[in-house]
Protein backbone atom coordinates (compact mmCIF):
# COMPACT_ATOMS: atom_id res chain seq x y z
CA UNK A 1 0.00 0.00 0.00
CA UNK A 2 2.72 2.45 0.97
CA UNK A 3 4.52 2.59 -2.36
CA UNK A 4 1.56 4.03 -4.21
CA UNK A 5 0.80 6.42 -1.39
CA UNK A 6 4.20 8.02 -1.43
CA UNK A 7 4.13 8.65 -5.14
CA UNK A 8 2.69 12.12 -5.72
CA UNK A 9 2.40 11.56 -9.47
CA UNK A 10 -0.02 8.72 -9.13
CA UNK A 11 -2.57 9.03 -11.87
CA UNK A 12 -6.00 9.85 -10.62
CA UNK A 13 -9.18 9.86 -12.58
CA UNK A 14 -10.31 13.33 -13.61
CA UNK A 15 -13.90 12.30 -13.60
CA UNK A 16 -16.13 13.87 -10.98
CA UNK A 17 -17.86 11.30 -8.89
CA UNK A 18 -20.74 11.36 -6.52
CA UNK A 19 -19.42 10.59 -3.11
CA UNK A 20 -20.73 10.55 0.39
CA UNK A 21 -19.73 13.52 2.60
CA UNK A 22 -17.45 11.43 4.79
CA UNK A 23 -15.71 10.11 1.75
CA UNK A 24 -15.38 13.62 0.41
CA UNK A 25 -13.50 14.62 3.54
CA UNK A 26 -11.21 11.65 3.16
CA UNK A 27 -10.61 12.35 -0.48
CA UNK A 28 -9.87 16.00 0.12
CA UNK A 29 -6.48 15.20 1.54
CA UNK A 30 -3.54 14.68 -0.76
CA UNK A 31 -3.08 11.06 0.14
CA UNK A 32 -6.36 9.76 1.37
CA UNK A 33 -5.12 6.22 1.71
CA UNK A 34 -2.70 7.10 4.48
CA UNK A 35 -5.41 9.11 6.15
CA UNK A 36 -7.72 6.16 5.97
CA UNK A 37 -5.05 3.89 7.38
CA UNK A 38 -4.45 6.24 10.30
CA UNK A 39 -8.15 6.58 10.98
CA UNK A 40 -8.47 2.85 11.02
CA UNK A 41 -5.61 2.41 13.46
CA UNK A 42 -7.23 4.95 15.73
CA UNK A 43 -10.46 3.04 15.52
CA UNK A 44 -8.68 0.04 16.97
CA UNK A 45 -8.39 1.92 20.26
CA UNK A 46 -12.08 2.73 20.41
CA UNK A 47 -14.58 1.28 22.81
CA UNK A 48 -18.13 0.47 22.06
CA UNK A 49 -19.84 3.24 24.01
CA UNK A 50 -23.34 2.44 22.97
CA UNK A 51 -25.69 4.97 21.50
CA UNK A 52 -24.55 8.45 22.43
CA UNK A 53 -27.76 9.28 24.23
CA UNK A 54 -26.26 9.63 27.67
CA UNK A 55 -24.34 12.78 26.86
CA UNK A 56 -27.28 14.42 25.18
CA UNK A 57 -29.66 13.77 28.04
CA UNK A 58 -27.20 15.15 30.55
CA UNK A 59 -28.43 18.73 30.71
CA UNK A 60 -32.07 17.95 30.20
CA UNK A 61 -34.64 18.51 32.87
CA UNK A 62 -35.82 14.97 32.44
CA UNK A 63 -32.60 13.38 33.63
CA UNK A 64 -34.10 12.19 36.89
CA UNK A 65 -32.44 8.84 36.74
CA UNK A 66 -29.03 10.45 37.04
CA UNK A 67 -27.29 10.50 40.36
CA UNK A 68 -29.32 12.36 42.92
CA UNK A 69 -26.61 14.70 44.11
CA UNK A 70 -26.06 15.90 40.59
CA UNK A 71 -29.70 16.72 40.36
CA UNK A 72 -29.64 18.63 43.62
CA UNK A 73 -26.68 20.66 42.52
CA UNK A 74 -28.48 21.58 39.37
CA UNK A 75 -31.48 22.78 41.34
CA UNK A 76 -29.34 25.07 43.44
CA UNK A 77 -27.60 26.54 40.48
CA UNK A 78 -30.93 26.98 38.76
CA UNK A 79 -31.34 30.58 39.91
CA UNK A 80 -28.77 31.85 37.49
CA UNK A 81 -29.85 31.59 33.91
CA UNK A 82 -27.38 30.08 31.55
CA UNK A 83 -27.08 30.82 27.91
CA UNK A 84 -26.71 28.00 25.51
CA UNK A 85 -23.24 29.05 24.60
CA UNK A 86 -22.07 29.07 28.19
CA UNK A 87 -23.59 25.67 28.66
CA UNK A 88 -21.85 24.34 25.60
CA UNK A 89 -18.56 25.78 26.74
CA UNK A 90 -18.91 24.27 30.14
CA UNK A 91 -19.80 20.91 28.69
CA UNK A 92 -16.79 21.06 26.42
CA UNK A 93 -14.59 21.82 29.39
CA UNK A 94 -16.03 19.01 31.44
CA UNK A 95 -16.06 16.43 28.70
CA UNK A 96 -13.21 13.96 28.96
CA UNK A 97 -10.69 14.49 26.25
CA UNK A 98 -8.90 11.66 24.64
CA UNK A 99 -5.26 11.00 25.13
CA UNK A 100 -4.15 12.42 21.82
CA UNK A 101 -5.61 15.80 22.72
CA UNK A 102 -3.85 15.79 26.05
CA UNK A 103 -0.66 14.76 24.34
CA UNK A 104 -0.95 17.61 21.91
CA UNK A 105 -1.58 20.00 24.75
CA UNK A 106 1.50 18.84 26.66
CA UNK A 107 3.63 20.05 23.76
CA UNK A 108 6.28 17.39 24.11
CA UNK A 109 8.00 18.46 20.90
CA UNK A 110 9.30 21.48 22.75
CA UNK A 111 11.42 19.37 25.09
CA UNK A 112 15.17 19.26 24.40
CA UNK A 113 16.14 16.20 22.36
CA UNK A 114 17.90 14.34 25.16
CA UNK A 115 14.86 14.17 27.44
CA UNK A 116 13.00 10.88 27.05
CA UNK A 117 9.31 11.45 26.48
CA UNK A 118 6.23 9.64 25.31
CA UNK A 119 6.95 10.54 21.72
CA UNK A 120 10.56 9.42 21.80
CA UNK A 121 9.74 6.12 23.42
CA UNK A 122 7.81 4.94 20.37
CA UNK A 123 9.69 2.11 18.75
CA UNK A 124 9.84 3.66 15.30
CA UNK A 125 9.47 2.19 11.85
CA UNK A 126 10.55 -1.39 11.18
CA UNK A 127 13.99 -1.87 9.70
CA UNK A 128 12.77 -4.04 6.89
CA UNK A 129 10.45 -2.32 4.48
CA UNK A 130 9.09 -5.44 2.86
CA UNK A 131 5.61 -6.19 3.97
CA UNK A 132 3.58 -9.29 4.05
CA UNK A 133 0.19 -8.85 2.50
CA UNK A 134 -2.94 -10.56 3.63
CA UNK A 135 -6.19 -10.71 1.76
CA UNK A 136 -8.64 -8.34 3.38
CA UNK A 137 -11.49 -10.69 2.58
CA UNK A 138 -10.30 -14.13 3.65
CA UNK A 139 -7.01 -13.44 5.42
CA UNK A 140 -4.70 -15.61 3.34
CA UNK A 141 -1.66 -14.29 1.53
CA UNK A 142 -2.70 -12.01 -1.26
CA UNK A 143 -1.03 -11.15 -4.52
CA UNK A 144 -3.33 -8.50 -5.87
CA UNK A 145 -4.17 -4.94 -4.98
CA UNK A 146 -7.43 -3.23 -5.69
CA UNK A 147 -6.73 -0.55 -8.27
CA UNK A 148 -9.36 1.73 -6.83
CA UNK A 149 -8.70 1.68 -3.12
CA UNK A 150 -5.44 -0.17 -2.57
CA UNK A 151 -6.78 -2.99 -0.43
CA UNK A 152 -5.51 -6.47 -0.96
CA UNK A 153 -7.29 -9.57 -2.16
CA UNK A 154 -6.14 -13.01 -3.21
CA UNK A 155 -8.48 -14.31 -5.85
CA UNK A 156 -11.28 -13.40 -8.22
CA UNK A 157 -13.75 -14.69 -5.66
CA UNK A 158 -12.40 -12.38 -2.98
CA UNK A 159 -12.17 -9.53 -5.45
CA UNK A 160 -15.86 -9.82 -6.15
CA UNK A 161 -16.69 -9.77 -2.48
CA UNK A 162 -14.38 -6.84 -2.01
CA UNK A 163 -15.93 -4.86 -4.84
CA UNK A 164 -19.41 -5.55 -3.58
CA UNK A 165 -18.86 -4.76 0.05
CA UNK A 166 -16.02 -2.53 1.01
CA UNK A 167 -14.26 -1.15 -2.02
CA UNK A 168 -13.63 2.55 -1.35
CA UNK A 169 -15.12 2.22 2.10
CA UNK A 170 -11.69 2.64 3.61
CA UNK A 171 -11.71 -0.01 6.25
CA UNK A 172 -8.81 -2.27 5.48
Amino acid at each position, binding site marked *: *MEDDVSNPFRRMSMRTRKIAPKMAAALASSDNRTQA*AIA*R*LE*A*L*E*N*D*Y*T*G*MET*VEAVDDDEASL*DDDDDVYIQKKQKGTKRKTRQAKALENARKA*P*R*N*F*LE*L*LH*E*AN*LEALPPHV*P*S*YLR*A*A*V*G*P*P*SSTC*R*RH*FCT*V*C*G*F*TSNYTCAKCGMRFCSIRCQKIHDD*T*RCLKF*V*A
Partner: protein
Amino acid sequence: MSSVVVLDNGGGLIKAGYGGERDPSSIIPNCLYRPLSSKKFLHPTPTTEEDLTSAAVRRPIDRGYLINPDLQRDIWNHLFSNLLHINPSNSSLLLTEPLFSLPSIERATDELVFEDFGFNSLFISDPPKLVHLYEASRRPYGLVSQAQCSLVVDCGFSFTHAAPVFQNFTLNYGVKRIDLGGKALTNFLKELVSYRSVSVMDESFIMDDVKEKLCFVSLDVARDLKIARRRGNDNFFRCTYVLPDGVTHTKGFVKDPDEAKKHLTVDDGAYLETRKDMDRTEIMDRKKVDLTKNEFDLTNERFLVPEMIFHPADLGMNQAGLAECIVRAVNSCHPLLHPLLYQSIILTGGSTLFPRFAERLEMELRPLVPDDYQVKITTQEDPILGTWRGGSLLASSPDFEAMCVTKAEYEELGSARCRRRFFH
Protein backbone atom coordinates in the same frame (compact mmCIF):
# COMPACT_ATOMS: atom_id res chain seq x y z
CA MET B 1 0.51 1.29 61.80
CA SER B 2 -1.48 2.16 58.75
CA SER B 3 -2.24 -0.29 56.00
CA VAL B 4 -0.86 0.01 52.49
CA VAL B 5 -3.17 -0.40 49.55
CA VAL B 6 -1.46 -1.62 46.41
CA LEU B 7 -3.30 -0.61 43.28
CA ASP B 8 -2.18 -1.63 39.84
CA ASN B 9 -4.40 0.61 37.79
CA GLY B 10 -4.30 -1.02 34.40
CA GLY B 11 -6.24 0.00 31.35
CA GLY B 12 -8.05 -3.31 31.29
CA LEU B 13 -8.05 -4.65 34.83
CA ILE B 14 -7.56 -3.04 38.21
CA LYS B 15 -5.58 -5.23 40.53
CA ALA B 16 -6.00 -4.11 44.09
CA GLY B 17 -5.16 -5.50 47.47
CA TYR B 18 -3.19 -4.99 50.65
CA GLY B 19 0.58 -4.68 50.70
CA GLY B 20 2.43 -7.77 51.87
CA GLU B 21 -0.10 -10.27 50.61
CA ARG B 22 0.64 -12.65 47.82
CA ASP B 23 -2.41 -12.07 45.66
CA PRO B 24 -4.60 -9.03 45.16
CA SER B 25 -7.91 -9.33 46.92
CA SER B 26 -9.90 -7.99 44.02
CA ILE B 27 -9.39 -7.86 40.31
CA ILE B 28 -12.04 -5.91 38.46
CA PRO B 29 -12.26 -4.53 34.95
CA ASN B 30 -11.35 -0.86 34.91
CA CYS B 31 -14.56 0.26 33.31
CA LEU B 32 -18.23 0.87 33.76
CA TYR B 33 -20.58 -1.05 31.57
CA ARG B 34 -24.17 -0.77 30.60
CA PRO B 35 -25.92 -3.94 29.54
CA LEU B 36 -28.90 -3.71 27.25
CA SER B 37 -31.22 -4.31 30.16
CA SER B 38 -30.00 -1.28 32.08
CA LYS B 39 -30.21 2.45 31.59
CA LYS B 40 -27.35 3.29 33.89
CA PHE B 41 -23.71 2.43 33.70
CA LEU B 42 -22.93 -0.21 36.30
CA HIS B 43 -19.90 -1.28 38.26
CA PRO B 44 -18.56 -4.65 37.28
CA THR B 45 -18.41 -7.18 40.07
CA PRO B 46 -15.73 -9.88 40.28
CA THR B 47 -18.18 -12.66 39.57
CA THR B 48 -20.53 -11.08 37.15
CA GLU B 49 -23.28 -13.37 36.04
CA GLU B 50 -24.95 -10.72 34.04
CA ASP B 51 -25.70 -10.83 30.37
CA LEU B 52 -22.94 -8.77 28.79
CA THR B 53 -24.30 -8.98 25.27
CA SER B 54 -23.92 -5.67 23.50
CA ALA B 55 -22.96 -3.93 26.70
CA ALA B 56 -21.61 -0.44 26.25
CA VAL B 57 -18.31 0.29 27.95
CA ARG B 58 -16.76 3.39 29.39
CA ARG B 59 -13.14 3.36 30.37
CA PRO B 60 -11.27 6.02 32.31
CA ILE B 61 -8.08 5.07 30.53
CA ASP B 62 -7.30 5.74 26.91
CA ARG B 63 -4.10 4.43 25.29
CA GLY B 64 -2.85 3.49 28.72
CA TYR B 65 -3.19 6.89 30.34
CA LEU B 66 -5.81 8.24 32.69
CA ILE B 67 -7.98 10.66 30.76
CA ASN B 68 -11.20 10.64 32.71
CA PRO B 69 -10.52 11.23 36.41
CA ASP B 70 -14.24 11.56 37.19
CA LEU B 71 -14.93 8.08 35.95
CA GLN B 72 -11.86 6.75 37.69
CA ARG B 73 -13.07 8.31 40.93
CA ASP B 74 -16.35 6.48 40.56
CA ILE B 75 -14.65 3.16 40.03
CA TRP B 76 -12.14 3.64 42.85
CA ASN B 77 -14.88 4.75 45.16
CA HIS B 78 -16.72 1.54 44.51
CA LEU B 79 -13.52 -0.43 44.87
CA PHE B 80 -12.41 1.11 48.16
CA SER B 81 -15.75 1.15 49.90
CA ASN B 82 -17.47 -1.98 48.60
CA LEU B 83 -14.69 -4.39 47.75
CA LEU B 84 -11.62 -3.54 49.80
CA HIS B 85 -13.43 -1.90 52.72
CA ILE B 86 -10.70 0.55 53.57
CA ASN B 87 -10.64 4.04 54.89
CA PRO B 88 -8.32 6.09 52.67
CA SER B 89 -7.53 8.65 55.33
CA ASN B 90 -5.56 6.16 57.39
CA SER B 91 -3.91 4.17 54.63
CA SER B 92 -1.11 4.66 52.16
CA LEU B 93 -1.44 4.01 48.49
CA LEU B 94 1.03 2.39 46.15
CA LEU B 95 -0.17 3.22 42.67
CA THR B 96 1.22 2.20 39.33
CA GLU B 97 1.36 4.70 36.56
CA PRO B 98 2.56 4.01 33.03
CA LEU B 99 5.89 5.34 31.90
CA PHE B 100 6.07 8.79 30.36
CA SER B 101 2.89 10.08 31.83
CA LEU B 102 2.05 13.68 30.97
CA PRO B 103 2.28 16.42 33.61
CA SER B 104 -1.43 17.18 33.31
CA ILE B 105 -2.29 13.53 33.90
CA GLU B 106 0.06 13.32 36.88
CA ARG B 107 -1.59 16.36 38.39
CA ALA B 108 -5.03 14.88 37.89
CA THR B 109 -3.92 11.62 39.53
CA ASP B 110 -2.49 13.43 42.53
CA GLU B 111 -5.65 15.42 42.94
CA LEU B 112 -7.66 12.26 42.81
CA VAL B 113 -5.54 10.51 45.43
CA PHE B 114 -5.06 13.33 47.90
CA GLU B 115 -7.98 15.67 47.43
CA ASP B 116 -10.83 13.37 46.47
CA PHE B 117 -9.91 10.35 48.55
CA GLY B 118 -7.57 11.91 51.08
CA PHE B 119 -4.99 9.17 51.27
CA ASN B 120 -2.37 9.50 53.93
CA SER B 121 0.57 9.04 51.63
CA LEU B 122 1.24 8.01 48.10
CA PHE B 123 3.93 6.18 46.24
CA ILE B 124 3.91 6.11 42.46
CA SER B 125 5.80 3.43 40.63
CA ASP B 126 6.14 2.35 37.05
CA PRO B 127 5.24 -1.27 36.29
CA PRO B 128 8.59 -2.58 34.90
CA LYS B 129 10.38 -1.76 38.12
CA LEU B 130 7.88 -3.74 40.17
CA VAL B 131 8.03 -6.72 37.85
CA HIS B 132 11.81 -6.69 38.15
CA LEU B 133 11.57 -6.48 41.90
CA TYR B 134 9.25 -9.45 42.08
CA GLU B 135 11.35 -11.62 39.79
CA ALA B 136 14.53 -10.70 41.64
CA SER B 137 13.02 -11.67 44.96
CA ARG B 138 11.71 -14.96 43.66
CA ARG B 139 15.16 -16.18 42.73
CA PRO B 140 17.65 -14.50 45.07
CA TYR B 141 20.58 -16.27 43.45
CA GLY B 142 19.42 -15.96 39.88
CA LEU B 143 20.92 -13.64 37.34
CA VAL B 144 18.19 -11.03 37.63
CA SER B 145 18.87 -10.39 41.27
CA GLN B 146 22.63 -10.87 41.16
CA ALA B 147 23.17 -8.51 38.27
CA GLN B 148 20.29 -6.30 39.38
CA CYS B 149 19.25 -5.79 35.84
CA SER B 150 16.61 -7.13 33.53
CA LEU B 151 14.61 -6.29 30.47
CA VAL B 152 10.92 -6.24 31.23
CA VAL B 153 8.65 -6.81 28.26
CA ASP B 154 5.19 -5.77 29.31
CA CYS B 155 2.52 -6.55 26.78
CA GLY B 156 -0.65 -5.36 28.34
CA PHE B 157 -4.06 -4.05 27.47
CA SER B 158 -3.16 -0.68 26.00
CA PHE B 159 0.36 -0.98 24.72
CA THR B 160 3.58 -2.96 24.78
CA HIS B 161 6.74 -1.75 26.45
CA ALA B 162 10.26 -3.10 26.41
CA ALA B 163 11.90 -1.50 29.42
CA PRO B 164 15.44 -2.06 30.68
CA VAL B 165 15.64 -2.02 34.47
CA PHE B 166 18.96 -1.50 36.23
CA GLN B 167 19.47 -1.44 40.00
CA ASN B 168 15.74 -1.24 40.53
CA PHE B 169 15.33 1.77 38.28
CA THR B 170 13.74 1.78 34.89
CA LEU B 171 16.16 3.31 32.40
CA ASN B 172 13.67 5.60 30.77
CA TYR B 173 15.93 6.56 27.88
CA GLY B 174 15.98 2.91 26.86
CA VAL B 175 12.26 2.23 26.97
CA LYS B 176 10.61 1.44 23.65
CA ARG B 177 6.91 1.21 23.05
CA ILE B 178 4.68 -0.44 20.47
CA ASP B 179 1.20 1.06 20.37
CA LEU B 180 -0.51 -2.29 20.35
CA GLY B 181 -2.04 -4.18 23.20
CA GLY B 182 -4.88 -6.48 24.06
CA LYS B 183 -7.53 -3.92 23.33
CA ALA B 184 -6.35 -3.30 19.79
CA LEU B 185 -6.11 -7.03 19.22
CA THR B 186 -9.67 -7.59 20.41
CA ASN B 187 -10.88 -4.80 18.19
CA PHE B 188 -8.99 -6.24 15.27
CA LEU B 189 -10.58 -9.62 15.85
CA LYS B 190 -13.96 -7.93 16.06
CA GLU B 191 -13.35 -6.26 12.75
CA LEU B 192 -12.36 -9.51 11.05
CA VAL B 193 -15.25 -11.53 12.40
CA SER B 194 -17.75 -8.77 11.69
CA TYR B 195 -16.67 -8.56 8.10
CA ARG B 196 -16.45 -12.27 7.48
CA SER B 197 -19.39 -13.73 9.38
CA VAL B 198 -21.50 -12.15 12.10
CA SER B 199 -21.43 -8.53 13.15
CA VAL B 200 -19.89 -8.40 16.60
CA MET B 201 -18.74 -4.80 16.65
CA ASP B 202 -20.72 -4.18 19.85
CA GLU B 203 -19.55 -7.25 21.72
CA SER B 204 -16.39 -6.19 23.53
CA PHE B 205 -16.74 -8.67 26.36
CA ILE B 206 -17.60 -11.62 24.20
CA MET B 207 -14.78 -10.97 21.79
CA ASP B 208 -12.35 -10.66 24.67
CA ASP B 209 -13.42 -14.13 25.66
CA VAL B 210 -13.02 -15.42 22.11
CA LYS B 211 -9.55 -13.96 21.92
CA GLU B 212 -8.49 -15.45 25.22
CA LYS B 213 -9.85 -18.89 24.45
CA LEU B 214 -9.03 -19.34 20.80
CA CYS B 215 -6.12 -17.19 19.71
CA PHE B 216 -2.58 -18.48 19.71
CA VAL B 217 0.76 -17.48 18.32
CA SER B 218 1.89 -19.27 15.22
CA LEU B 219 5.47 -20.50 14.98
CA ASP B 220 5.45 -20.60 11.21
CA VAL B 221 2.89 -18.35 9.63
CA ALA B 222 3.34 -19.52 6.05
CA ARG B 223 2.86 -23.15 7.01
CA ASP B 224 -0.07 -22.45 9.24
CA LEU B 225 -1.79 -20.43 6.55
CA LYS B 226 -1.55 -23.45 4.28
CA ILE B 227 -3.09 -25.67 6.92
CA ALA B 228 -5.82 -23.16 7.59
CA ARG B 229 -6.81 -23.35 3.95
CA ARG B 230 -7.64 -27.04 4.14
CA ARG B 231 -11.12 -28.36 4.37
CA GLY B 232 -12.85 -30.69 6.72
CA ASN B 233 -10.96 -32.48 9.44
CA ASP B 234 -7.55 -31.67 8.04
CA ASN B 235 -7.98 -28.11 9.05
CA PHE B 236 -6.59 -28.09 12.54
CA PHE B 237 -7.44 -24.51 13.09
CA ARG B 238 -11.09 -24.30 12.31
CA CYS B 239 -13.02 -23.82 15.43
CA THR B 240 -16.57 -22.78 16.13
CA TYR B 241 -17.58 -20.31 18.76
CA VAL B 242 -21.19 -20.10 19.84
CA LEU B 243 -22.51 -16.68 20.70
CA PRO B 244 -24.88 -16.32 23.64
CA ASP B 245 -28.52 -16.45 22.68
CA GLY B 246 -29.79 -14.75 25.81
CA VAL B 247 -32.20 -17.58 26.59
CA THR B 248 -30.42 -20.80 27.41
CA HIS B 249 -26.97 -19.35 27.92
CA THR B 250 -25.81 -15.81 28.50
CA LYS B 251 -22.14 -16.56 27.92
CA GLY B 252 -20.54 -17.51 24.67
CA PHE B 253 -18.54 -20.71 24.51
CA VAL B 254 -16.29 -22.76 22.30
CA LYS B 255 -18.42 -25.39 20.63
CA ASP B 256 -15.90 -28.20 20.80
CA PRO B 257 -13.00 -27.72 23.23
CA ASP B 258 -11.04 -30.59 21.68
CA GLU B 259 -11.26 -28.90 18.34
CA ALA B 260 -9.78 -25.78 19.86
CA LYS B 261 -6.78 -27.67 21.15
CA LYS B 262 -6.03 -29.34 17.85
CA HIS B 263 -3.62 -26.64 16.77
CA LEU B 264 -1.17 -27.80 19.41
CA THR B 265 -0.61 -31.01 17.49
CA VAL B 266 0.57 -29.16 14.42
CA ASP B 267 4.11 -28.74 15.61
CA ASP B 268 4.50 -32.42 16.37
CA GLY B 269 4.47 -33.15 12.67
CA ALA B 270 1.05 -34.73 12.75
CA TYR B 271 -0.09 -32.47 9.99
CA LEU B 272 2.10 -34.23 7.44
CA GLU B 273 0.37 -37.57 7.73
CA THR B 274 -3.09 -36.39 6.96
CA ARG B 275 -1.92 -34.68 3.84
CA LYS B 276 -2.43 -37.75 1.62
CA ASP B 277 -6.15 -37.97 1.96
CA MET B 278 -6.58 -34.29 1.47
CA ASP B 279 -8.06 -34.69 -1.99
CA ARG B 280 -10.71 -36.99 -0.70
CA THR B 281 -12.01 -34.51 1.79
CA GLU B 282 -11.89 -31.86 -0.86
CA ILE B 283 -15.30 -33.07 -1.99
CA MET B 284 -17.87 -30.62 -0.81
CA ASP B 285 -18.14 -31.53 2.82
CA ARG B 286 -17.77 -27.93 3.69
CA LYS B 287 -19.90 -27.20 6.62
CA LYS B 288 -22.04 -24.20 5.98
CA VAL B 289 -22.08 -21.76 8.83
CA ASP B 290 -25.64 -21.35 9.90
CA LEU B 291 -26.19 -17.67 10.48
CA THR B 292 -29.43 -18.22 12.34
CA LYS B 293 -27.66 -20.29 14.97
CA ASN B 294 -25.44 -17.43 16.03
CA GLU B 295 -22.10 -19.05 15.75
CA PHE B 296 -19.03 -18.36 13.71
CA ASP B 297 -15.96 -20.21 12.58
CA LEU B 298 -12.46 -19.00 13.10
CA THR B 299 -9.55 -20.30 11.07
CA ASN B 300 -6.62 -18.09 10.20
CA GLU B 301 -7.90 -15.32 12.45
CA ARG B 302 -6.81 -17.40 15.40
CA PHE B 303 -3.14 -16.78 14.75
CA LEU B 304 -3.22 -13.71 12.54
CA VAL B 305 -4.54 -11.60 15.41
CA PRO B 306 -1.67 -12.15 17.90
CA GLU B 307 0.65 -11.99 14.90
CA MET B 308 0.15 -8.25 14.87
CA ILE B 309 2.34 -7.81 17.94
CA PHE B 310 5.22 -9.36 16.08
CA HIS B 311 4.52 -7.53 12.84
CA PRO B 312 2.53 -4.35 13.38
CA ALA B 313 3.38 -3.44 9.79
CA ASP B 314 0.85 -6.04 8.64
CA LEU B 315 -1.80 -3.87 10.14
CA GLY B 316 -0.52 -0.82 8.28
CA MET B 317 1.18 0.48 11.37
CA ASN B 318 4.56 2.08 10.86
CA GLN B 319 6.13 0.41 13.87
CA ALA B 320 8.65 -2.35 14.34
CA GLY B 321 7.66 -5.70 15.82
CA LEU B 322 8.28 -6.93 19.32
CA ALA B 323 11.64 -8.57 18.63
CA GLU B 324 13.03 -5.47 17.03
CA CYS B 325 11.55 -3.38 19.80
CA ILE B 326 13.54 -5.40 22.32
CA VAL B 327 16.74 -5.04 20.32
CA ARG B 328 16.31 -1.30 20.12
CA ALA B 329 15.62 -1.02 23.81
CA VAL B 330 18.79 -2.96 24.59
CA ASN B 331 20.89 -1.03 22.10
CA SER B 332 20.03 2.25 23.71
CA CYS B 333 21.65 1.10 26.95
CA HIS B 334 25.32 0.92 27.84
CA PRO B 335 27.11 -1.79 25.82
CA LEU B 336 28.23 -3.56 28.98
CA LEU B 337 24.62 -4.20 29.86
CA HIS B 338 23.68 -5.79 26.54
CA PRO B 339 24.57 -9.42 27.33
CA LEU B 340 22.93 -9.17 30.73
CA LEU B 341 19.74 -7.70 29.36
CA TYR B 342 19.40 -10.35 26.66
CA GLN B 343 19.83 -13.03 29.28
CA SER B 344 17.18 -11.69 31.58
CA ILE B 345 14.15 -10.88 29.50
CA ILE B 346 11.01 -11.06 31.60
CA LEU B 347 7.66 -11.41 29.88
CA THR B 348 4.68 -9.96 31.65
CA GLY B 349 1.23 -8.57 30.90
CA GLY B 350 -1.99 -10.25 29.90
CA SER B 351 -1.30 -10.34 26.19
CA THR B 352 1.67 -12.63 26.67
CA LEU B 353 -0.75 -15.36 27.70
CA PHE B 354 -1.31 -16.45 24.11
CA PRO B 355 0.02 -20.01 23.78
CA ARG B 356 3.58 -20.15 22.43
CA PHE B 357 4.18 -16.43 22.80
CA ALA B 358 7.60 -16.93 24.37
CA GLU B 359 8.75 -19.54 21.83
CA ARG B 360 7.86 -17.31 18.94
CA LEU B 361 9.58 -14.33 20.53
CA GLU B 362 12.74 -16.32 21.03
CA MET B 363 12.61 -17.54 17.44
CA GLU B 364 12.38 -13.99 16.18
CA LEU B 365 14.84 -12.52 18.61
CA ARG B 366 17.68 -15.00 18.21
CA PRO B 367 18.71 -13.97 14.68
CA LEU B 368 18.78 -10.32 15.70
CA VAL B 369 21.07 -10.78 18.69
CA PRO B 370 24.87 -11.16 18.30
CA ASP B 371 25.98 -14.78 18.32
CA ASP B 372 28.01 -14.68 21.50
CA TYR B 373 25.14 -13.41 23.63
CA GLN B 374 22.69 -15.79 25.17
CA VAL B 375 19.00 -15.12 24.90
CA LYS B 376 16.88 -16.20 27.81
CA ILE B 377 13.22 -15.38 28.12
CA THR B 378 11.54 -15.87 31.47
CA THR B 379 7.79 -16.11 31.65
CA GLN B 380 5.94 -15.29 34.81
CA GLU B 381 3.62 -17.80 36.37
CA ASP B 382 0.85 -15.23 36.38
CA PRO B 383 1.73 -12.40 34.00
CA ILE B 384 -1.36 -10.38 34.85
CA LEU B 385 -0.43 -10.19 38.52
CA GLY B 386 3.32 -9.71 38.13
CA THR B 387 3.22 -5.99 38.65
CA TRP B 388 0.88 -6.17 41.58
CA ARG B 389 3.00 -8.75 43.40
CA GLY B 390 6.05 -6.58 42.96
CA GLY B 391 4.10 -3.70 44.40
CA SER B 392 2.99 -5.80 47.32
CA LEU B 393 6.61 -6.70 48.03
CA LEU B 394 7.70 -3.11 47.85
CA ALA B 395 4.89 -2.03 50.13
CA SER B 396 5.96 -4.50 52.78
CA SER B 397 9.58 -3.41 52.73
CA PRO B 398 10.65 -1.49 55.84
CA ASP B 399 11.65 1.73 54.11
CA PHE B 400 8.46 2.06 52.12
CA GLU B 401 7.01 4.73 54.35
CA ALA B 402 10.08 6.88 53.86
CA MET B 403 9.72 6.81 50.10
CA CYS B 404 6.14 8.01 50.08
CA VAL B 405 4.87 11.50 49.60
CA THR B 406 2.58 12.39 52.45
CA LYS B 407 -0.57 14.41 52.22
CA ALA B 408 1.02 17.24 54.17
CA GLU B 409 3.94 17.38 51.76
CA TYR B 410 1.56 17.45 48.84
CA GLU B 411 -0.38 20.30 50.34
CA GLU B 412 2.81 22.17 51.04
CA LEU B 413 4.70 21.61 47.81
CA GLY B 414 2.14 20.77 45.18
CA SER B 415 2.08 18.01 42.64
CA ALA B 416 5.07 18.80 40.45
CA ARG B 417 7.57 19.03 43.29
CA CYS B 418 6.36 15.86 44.93
CA ARG B 419 6.68 13.99 41.70
CA ARG B 420 10.42 14.57 41.60
CA ARG B 421 10.78 12.15 44.43
CA PHE B 422 9.76 9.26 42.21
CA PHE B 423 12.51 9.94 39.63
CA HIS B 424 10.75 9.51 36.38
